[in-house]
């Protein structure tokens, strides 16, 4: 049997995408590798989710619950404990190889695919951290899963590298469970986490934050367990400064050093990649360069708010339905390019074959700007501008403007101007 839409991943993104598609009467199958729906929300037991969508401060599991209830009401087909391991396109149809303990390898065919497989954590190898390779160096998200899902505390004397929100949240969480958290080191001169988390996760528990510092040495004991780390202050070029070393005797180093979209399933399809988002390039319908293959959520771009994941994935689900209803006309596309003070932009293309009333563009600033003007140019012509205060790299920005203003033969550039 040929499905209309197969959704890969049952977290915030996959849930929203499949609910949207099912409401358009499509035959949807969701594939989830874990034993329950909800994805990473299940281990994010802290509150602060849903402020934007529901005006409530839900915890992660509560936020997931709202969507899982809706998902179940729609009677959407889904498979748990099942991993998609291969995706190819044959004669206009997508073929997905899935595997599970119960049924082994199986093949499913589908007209469209929505990738909502989330992201993974950067590890010490990716930042070339020097020193021994003992046990006790672990990513913050893994420690979070061990603690909140399995009830296992990974260490008693802890240091955290990286001040992203997961690191800050875990500093508080480990403290609450009786561990001693000796500090958080951040290589940048500012924290990547929300102020709220700096206050409520570090200051509340008297955990020091060492800005412009990084780990320069890792020492293990005779059992190959972590014994101590050394941190050093860094200069503007992120090089360690001599005689600024501080040593901490610890049993656990948590890493909160960034997230990368998980698109390993796309390895066998030739798609245009974006080195800035570390994912693939899409048009405004969340469609990749391969027609009928859609992507959303953290596998498209790493979000800071789950509310934005849900909204984005809802639109992706609707796009897949539009595609199935043959609503896409003759394709003609222009590029959307990141300009001054912008790290990345999505979508990377506008395809005039897709009919949209408004264009939604996301981007991230490359530095903190107190008073900024967002400007969108098509060649030399300014087609959109808006003032915005306190633009920071840690918060994704969204603009929306009418599609009618665009010429169909010139690329557009988004930039941030300091006032």
């Amino acid at each position, binding site marked *: 049997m040929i499905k209309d839409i197969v959704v890969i991943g049952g977290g915030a993104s996959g849930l929203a995408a499949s609910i949207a598609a099912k409401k358009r009467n499509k035959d949807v199958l969701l594939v989830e590798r874990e*034993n*329950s729906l*909800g994805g990473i929300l*299940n281990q994010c*037991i*802290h*509150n602060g989710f849903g402020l934007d969508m529901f005006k409530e*401060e839900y*915890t*992660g*599991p*509560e936020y997931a*619950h709202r969507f*899982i209830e809706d998902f179940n009401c729609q009677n959407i087909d889904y498979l*748990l404990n099942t991993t998609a391991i291969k995706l190819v396109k044959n004669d206009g149809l997508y073929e997905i190889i899935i595997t599970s303990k119960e049924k082994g390898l199986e093949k499913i065919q589908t007209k469209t695919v929505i990738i909502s497989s989330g992201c993974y954590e950067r590890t010490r190898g990716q930042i070339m951290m020097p020193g021994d390779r003992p046990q006790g160096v672990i990513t913050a998200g893994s420690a979070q899963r061990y*603690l*909140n*899902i*399995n*009830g296992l505390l990974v260490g008693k004397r802890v240091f955290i590298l990286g001040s992203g929100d997961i690191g800050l949240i875990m500093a508080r*969480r480990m403290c*609450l*469970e009786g561990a001693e958290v000796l500090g958080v080191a951040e290589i940048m001169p500012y924290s990547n986490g929300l*102020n*709220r988390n*700096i*206050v*409520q996760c570090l*200051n*509340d528990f008297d955990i020091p934050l060492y800005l412009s510092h990084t780990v320069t040495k890792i020492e293990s004991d005779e059992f190959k367990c972590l014994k101590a780390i050394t941190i050093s202050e860094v200069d503007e070029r992120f090089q360690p400064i001599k005689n600024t070393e501080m040593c901490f005797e610890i049993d656990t180093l948590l890493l909160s050093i960034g997230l990368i979209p998980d698109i390993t399933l796309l390895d066998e399809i030739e798609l245009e990649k974006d080195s800035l988002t570390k994912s693939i390039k899409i048009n405004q319908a969340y469609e990749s360069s391969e027609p009928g293959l859609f992507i959303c959520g953290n596998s498209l771009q790493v979000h800071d708010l789950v509310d934005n994941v849900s909204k984005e994935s809802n639109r992706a689900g609707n796009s897949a339905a539009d595609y199935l209803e043959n609503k896409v006309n003759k394709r003609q596309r222009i590029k959307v390019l990141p300009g001054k003070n912008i790290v990345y932009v999505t979508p990377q293309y506008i395809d005039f074959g897709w009919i949209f009333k408004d264009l939604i563009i996301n981007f991230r600033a490359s530095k903190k700007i107190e008073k900024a003007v967002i400007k969108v140019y098509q060649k030399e012509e300014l087609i959109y501008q808006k003032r915005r205060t*306190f633009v*920071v790299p840690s*918060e994704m920005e969204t603009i929306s403007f009418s599609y009618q203003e665009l010429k169909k033969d010139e690329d557009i550039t988004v930039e941030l101007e300091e006032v």
Partner: protein
Amino acid sequence: MMSKEFICIVCPRGCHIKVDEINNISGNQCKRGEAYVKNEMQNPKRVLTTTVRTTFLNNPRVSVKTDDSIPKDLIFPAMELINKVIITKKMEIGEVVISNILNTGVNIVLTKGTSNNSN
């Protein structure tokens, strides 16, 4: 009292606000910052989120929260009580596991059903 510094969390600006020995407040760029610091000094409250044990092999922990904020200095005493709870029966999201914890009028409630993970 020594002078203290607070980071205001009312807006993304994140003012560093100082309060000196005679309670002079400085460093805030708006009125809301002053109100925030006064509240943080007099009666800081927080929502506590954590987990409780269960007897279920497939989900040995289930997440809980205070259904309202509690005084900051009651967080560790509350943790001690919460860590004594063991859930042995199937329960739904929102059900109370400790009522009126430490006489705060606040309940500890499940933020996930204990049956969620077993399907």
